[in-house]
């Protein structure tokens, strides 16, 4: 999820600019929900729905296609999309909510769902969605108090993109293709060492996708080491553990050993897609939704492949991806629910995911072979990786306070990665920060 944002930001458009734009649109846009509401509840009169989202190029085109089909099937309803930069989407939505004029539909990252469900502002979709149709672990991401409050539209997970020329130069031949074959942390270390030896000045062995709002992707290492962020009751921190310290030690080592560039730490604005495209890294941990942009950017300058993330006690990945939701006080909730139902129908989800290299949430599609539009040959590791997410891990990253937890991770990890603080101290500080955020 947060990666789409990155794409928007990666070009160095600048947060400030984005924020400025966001503020403007929040103030000036006239949400279509003020448009005719008569007969909306009956579903007969003409209705215009406003849909606020952020999108990369491929996503925008795919959304437009789904909307066109929906409008064809429901002549009374038109949907107006309002695409805003990821960095300002939250401010934009806040302003609309505060003005009492929220959009009829909007896109929310799974990790941000809790902020809305805890305020009880979202439409209960119990009557529109069939919980059994979705992968249970993933459906969990939109559920609060036993009810679904969003349509779990897509997920994306992190796997490794690697340059074949760099691997050849470093003499790495055992490239894993399945989760079982995935490198152990030790094998990964050996490979990173070899790569670090063959990279030139200004290049590094790899980049990890934990920048900014992606800080929580560090949790993949924690989960791989067998650790947890929160206790099973989700009430207190569980990170100050052997597994926590092990994961911190290992990831801190990326910087100490020079495997990653120092300006790719958690607060940086150097993202994997731009680093990989510009040829400064041999491997990039990246979400599958970045593949379309990477493929355009690399322009066959070099050959590259994809492989699963390394594993330790377990294999793991991050919960990226987004739901689409409707506010419960919207003027056209019935039409909005109808669209959400359509959006996560098998056909719509299939075409959307195939066009964007994102992964589905419907059981019928996760077991099916999707025909991805761009570099389908790269997608297998991502699909496999998605299966490593457990419902327990999903529930840890969708607690209402997750925004604060993510921020705590960002602040504390930065001190370990660049500030030289020890893993033991960092684990303690993280536990304290997590505990504080939970209260």
């Amino acid at each position, binding site marked *: 999820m947060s990666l789409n944002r990155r794409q928007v930001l990666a070009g*160095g458009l*600048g*947060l*400030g*600019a984005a*924020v*400025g734009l966001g503020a403007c649109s929040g103030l000036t846009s006239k949400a279509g929900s003020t448009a005719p509401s008569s007969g909306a509840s009956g579903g007969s009169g003409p209705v215009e729905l406003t849909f606020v989202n952020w999108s990369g190029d491929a996503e925008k085109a795919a959304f437009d296609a789904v909307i066109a089909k929906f409008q064809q099937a429901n002549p009374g309803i038109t949907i107006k999309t309002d695409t805003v930069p990821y960095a300002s989407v*939250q*401010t934009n939505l*806040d302003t609309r*909510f*505060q*003005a009492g004029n929220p959009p009829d539909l909007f896109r929310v990252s799974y990790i941000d769902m809790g*902020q*809305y469900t805890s*305020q009880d*502002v979202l439409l209960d979709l119990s009557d529109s969605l069939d919980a059994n149709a979705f992968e249970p672990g993933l459906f969990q991401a939109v559920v609060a108090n036993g009810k679904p409050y969003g349509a779990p539209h897509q997920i994306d997970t992190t796997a490794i993109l690697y340059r074949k020329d760099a691997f050849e130069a470093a003499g790495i031949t055992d490239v894993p293709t399945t989760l079982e074959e995935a490198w152990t942390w030790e094998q990964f270390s050996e490979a990173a060492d070899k790569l670090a030896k063959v990279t030139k*000045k*200004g290049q590094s062995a790899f980049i990890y996708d934990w920048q900014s*709002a992606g800080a929580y992707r560090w949790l993949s290492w924690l989960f791989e080491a067998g650790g947890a962020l929160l206790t099973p009751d989700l009430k207190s921190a569980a990170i100050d553990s052997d597994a926590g310290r092990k994961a911190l030690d290992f990831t801190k080592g990326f910087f100490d050993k020079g495997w990653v*560039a*120092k*300006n790719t*730490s958690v*607060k*940086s*604005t*150097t993202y994997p897609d731009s680093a990989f495209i*510009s040829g*400064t890294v041999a491997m990039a941990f990246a979400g599958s939704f970045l593949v379309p942009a990477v493929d355009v950017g690399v322009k066959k300058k070099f050959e590259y492949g994809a492989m699963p993330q390394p594993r330790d006690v377990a294999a793991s990945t991050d919960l990226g991806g987004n739901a689409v939701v409707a506010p419960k006080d919207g003027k056209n909730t019935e039409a909005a629910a109808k669209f959400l139902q359509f959006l996560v129908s098998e056909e719509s989800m299939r075409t959307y995911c195939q066009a964007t290299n994102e992964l589905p949430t419907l059981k019928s599609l996760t077991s099916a072979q999707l025909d991805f539009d761009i570099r389908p040959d790269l997608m297998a590791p991502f699909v496999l990786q998605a299966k490593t997410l457990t419902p327990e891990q999903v529930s840890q990253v969708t607690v209402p306070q997750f*925004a*604060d937890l*993510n*921020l705590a991770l960002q*602040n504390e990890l*930065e*001190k370990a990665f*660049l*500030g030289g603080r020890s893993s033991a101290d960092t684990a303690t500080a993280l536990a304290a920060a997590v505990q504080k955020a939970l209260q």
Partner: protein
Amino acid sequence: MSSAAALAAGESPVAPAGGSASRRRRRGAIWEPSALLFVGPSVLLAVAFLILPMLGSFYYSTRKVSPLSGTSTPRGLDNYTTMLSDPTFLRALLNTALFTVITVPLSMGLGLALAVLMNSVLPWRKVWRTVVYLPLVISGVSVGLIGTFLYNEVIGVVNKLLLALGANGGIPWQSNGFWAFTSVVLVTIWIRVGFSMIIYLAALQAVPGDLYEAASLEGANGWQQFRHITFPLVGPATFFLIIMNVIYSFQVFDTIFVLTNGGPGNSTEVLGTWAYKVAFGPTRDQGYGAAIGVVIFVLTLIFTIVQWRANRNRDVVA
């Protein structure tokens, strides 16, 4: 109407306080209703976009604001006490002070030096003047972006230049707090030096040439002339610049937000960026953000009052 209105509008800013004003009122104050038309638009704009939002900040700084509904609940002075135990706030305060102490004298000193140079017989001085002033015209966000191209530690221009000149390795502009802070200071001085230069240049042109002539007849050398004639006579400009630059430095936001975003760690976090992050970042604590805004306001106000008083006394002494 025009003469009376012009009088009414033109006189008010310079109307002496106290005795004379009340005397005039007794005589039948000059009151021309059309004056309202002249000041109305500015007052309305100021009230709508400055005064009301400011009062709003004061109000919200004592509340907890719910980000979605916009409703707020009283929090007393909790937002202010939170600051005292918020290490990032304290760091931001320290950074802001440090940033101000470094950038204000440096940009003014350089500005004065450049102004003296531009005031002399430098060839193409109009071109140089424009070059120095230009960064000020560019938006802070763009300047920040230019800074990111210069100071990126892997692909940045500065490090590439250093490597080309035979340096061992680049400078860690982004991953080391000291260097990140340095990059911010350098970019800020680049922006601000033009402003100081223009103001000083205007002040220099008002210094009577015969003073220098008299001084040189008395045998004063160049430095002595600068020290005892130029510097004291551009005093009012110096005071104006100190106030403007300190306010600017205290409120710095856009350049830092784009260039370092407060990182690495919190080493370039300033009050402006921290207030923004608190209010509009993931935590969206708008009450606390407003409280930090109030702190910036109060600190700037205190400084301005002190400076203004010092300035007035100085004029009286002179």
